C-alpha cells in the first residue's frame, strides 16, 4: 500500500513544474495534489500492516501486451490479422480458455468486427497487409 502511494505521490508532484503564465492553474492543482498525496502516503508508511494488494500479473501483462501487439501490427499487417492476434494473445490471460475456443473466438470476432465496423459503419481500416 505504502509503496504504491509514494509512487503516486511522486507522480503528483511532477505536475508542478509548468511554465509561468499558462502554468498558474497546474501549479495550484499540483500543489494541492502533492499535499494530498503526502497526507495519504505518510500515514500509510507509518502504519505498517496492510500489505500492498497483490497485483494479478498474468492478466495485467497479457491483456496489455495484446493491445500493444495490436497497435504495432495494425499498420503493417492490416486489421484482419492483427485482430486475430489480439484475441489469441489476450486468450492467454485466462487459463480456463481452451486453445480451440480461442481460435474460434478470434475468427468469429474478427469477422463480426469487419462486418460491423468496416462494412456497416465504413471505418477506414486497411483490412489486409499493404502490398
Amino acid at each position, binding site marked *: 500500500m505504502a509503496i504504491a502511494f509514494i509512487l503516486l505521490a511522486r507522480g503528483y508532484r511532477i505536475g508542478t513544474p509548468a511554465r509561468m503564465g499558462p502554468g498558474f492553474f497546474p501549479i495550484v492543482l499540483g500543489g494541492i495534489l502533492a499535499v494530498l498525496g503526502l*497526507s495519504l502516503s505518510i500515514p500509510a508508511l507509518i502504519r505498517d500492516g496492510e500489505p500492498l494488494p497483490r497485483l494479478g500479473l498474468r492478466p495485467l501483462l497479457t491483456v496489455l501486451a495484446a493491445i500493444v501487439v495490436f497497435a504495432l501490427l495494425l499498420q503493417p499487417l492490416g486489421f484482419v490479422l492483427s485482430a486475430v492476434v489480439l484475441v489469441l494473445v489476450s486468450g492467454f490471460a485466462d487459463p480456463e480458455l481452451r486453445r480451440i475456443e480461442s481460435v474460434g473466438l*478470434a475468427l468469429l470476432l474478427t469477422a463480426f*468486427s469487419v462486418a460491423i465496423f468496416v462494412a456497416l459503419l465504413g471505418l477506414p481500416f486497411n483490412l489486409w497487409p499493404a502490398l
Partner: protein
Amino acid sequence: MDILSNLTLGFGVAVTLQNLAYCFIGAFLGTLIGVLPGIGPVATVAMLLPLTFSLPPATAMIMLAGIYYGAQYGGSTTAILINIPGESSSVVTTIDGHQMAKQGRAGPALGMAAIASFVAGSVATLVVALFSPPLAEIALQFQPADYFSLMVFGLVGAVVLARGSLRKAIAMVIVGLLLGLVGTDVNSGQQRFTLGIPALAEGISFAALAMGMFGVAEVIYNLEQRAAERQVRIGGIGRVMPSLADLRQCMWSIARGTGLGSLLGILPGGGALLASFAAYTVEKKVAREPRTFGHGDIRGVAAPEAANNAGAQTSFIPMLTLGVPANPTMALMIGALMIQGIQPGPQVMLQRPELFWGLVASMWIGNLFLLLLNLPLVGLWVRLLAVPYRLLFPAILMFCCIGVFSINNNAFDLFQLVVFSALGYVLLKLGCEPAPLILGLVLGPMMEEYLRRALLISLGDPMVLITSPLSAAFLFASLVLLVSIAVPMIRAQREVAMKE
C-alpha cells in the same frame, strides 16, 4: 405554449427514420451489453462511444442516450436474476429483486422494473423539458467566476458521493483535472505536459482514458477475480407481466420513486444512486407491513427502479443546461459533444434547439423502446447472462481497441489506452474510484478557462470569486458539503449507507 412548439420541434427531429433507428439500436445495444455481467453503464457507453462519431450530433446524442438507459436497465436485469448489480444505482434492486427471483417470481420483478422505469422515464423527461429552459436562461447570465465556482461545486458533489476514502476521491479529481490540461494551452499556444510527443498536443485521448479505466482495467480486474467465480444459476422466469394486484400495489411506490428520482437526479455526483437508496428507504417507512421488504416485496423493486431511471433522466439537466456532468456517464456525453465540436453549456439550447429538443423527445421514445424490448425479450437477455466470461473478455478488448483507434486512426491512441488501462487497474487495486477522475478530466480545461477569464475581467483580483454572489454561494455550498462529510458522525452514516 412555448414548450409545446419546442416539443413538436423535438419530436420532428426524433421521429425521423434515421433517428428512430439509432435510438432503437442504442437502446438495444445498451441493454445487450449492459446485461453482460461485469459491464456497467459507464463501460457500455465508453465502449460504444466510437460508434457515434460518424453520426450527426443530434443523432449521436440520441443514440448515446439510448445506450445509457438501455445499459441502466440491463444492470437491473442482472441485479434481479443473479444478484449482481450492473452498477451502484441498481444495488438496492438486488435486495428484493433477487429474493423475488429466488421465489420464482423473476418474471414479474423484471416486468415491474420495466414498467416502473418507463413511467418514471416519461415523467422525468417532462421534468427535463419543463425545467431545462428556465435553468439555461439563468445560466446564460453566469459570469466566468460563477461558472468556475459552479464546477467546483459539481466536482465536490461528485467527490462526496464517491465510495471509499474522501481524500482519495479528491486526489482523483485533481489527477483528472491535471490530465485534462495536457496538450496545447488555448490562450498561449504553449504545449504543456506533452513530454515532447507531438500526438499529445491535442490533449489526452478522452476515449482512450475512458475505455482504459472503465473497460480494460475492469477486464483485467475481473480476470484476476476468477478464483471467486460466481455461480450463475437462473431459475424459471415465469410470467413477465405483473398481475393487476401487483400493479395496484406498486402504483404509489412508482410515483414516489419517480418524484424522488427526478429531484435527486439533478444533484451533482450520481443522483441516480442516491435516489434509489432514498426511494427504497421511503417505501420501507411508508409500507404498512415493512417486514416483507427484503423478502421479495415487489414494491422494493418498483420504487428504486423508478427512482434510478428518473434520476438517470434528470441528470441530463445539468449536463445540457450548464455543461456540468452529474456523473461519469454524463462526462462521457460531454466528451462526445466536444468531439462533435459542440461546446456544452447553456448556449447549446439556443444555438442548437434541434439537438436539445430532439434529445428530450428521444428520451421518451427511447423509454418506450425499452419497454417494448424488455417485456418480450427477457428470455434473450437471460440467455446472454449465461455467456461465460472467458468468451466475453476478448470481445470487450477488441471493441475497446477498435473504438480507440477509430477516433483518430492513430496507433498512438492505443498506447494511451495501454497506459490508462494499467493506471486504471492500479487505481482499482488501491481502492480509488475512477469516476471522479473522469469528471475532472472533462471539467479541467473548462475550469481553467473560466478561472482565467474571471481573473482577467477582475484584473487579477481573486476576490471576484467571493464578491459575485452566485459564485460565493456555490463555493459556500461546496465548503459546507466538504465539511459535513469530514465530520465523523456524518461520515459514519455515509459509510453505513454505502455498505447497505
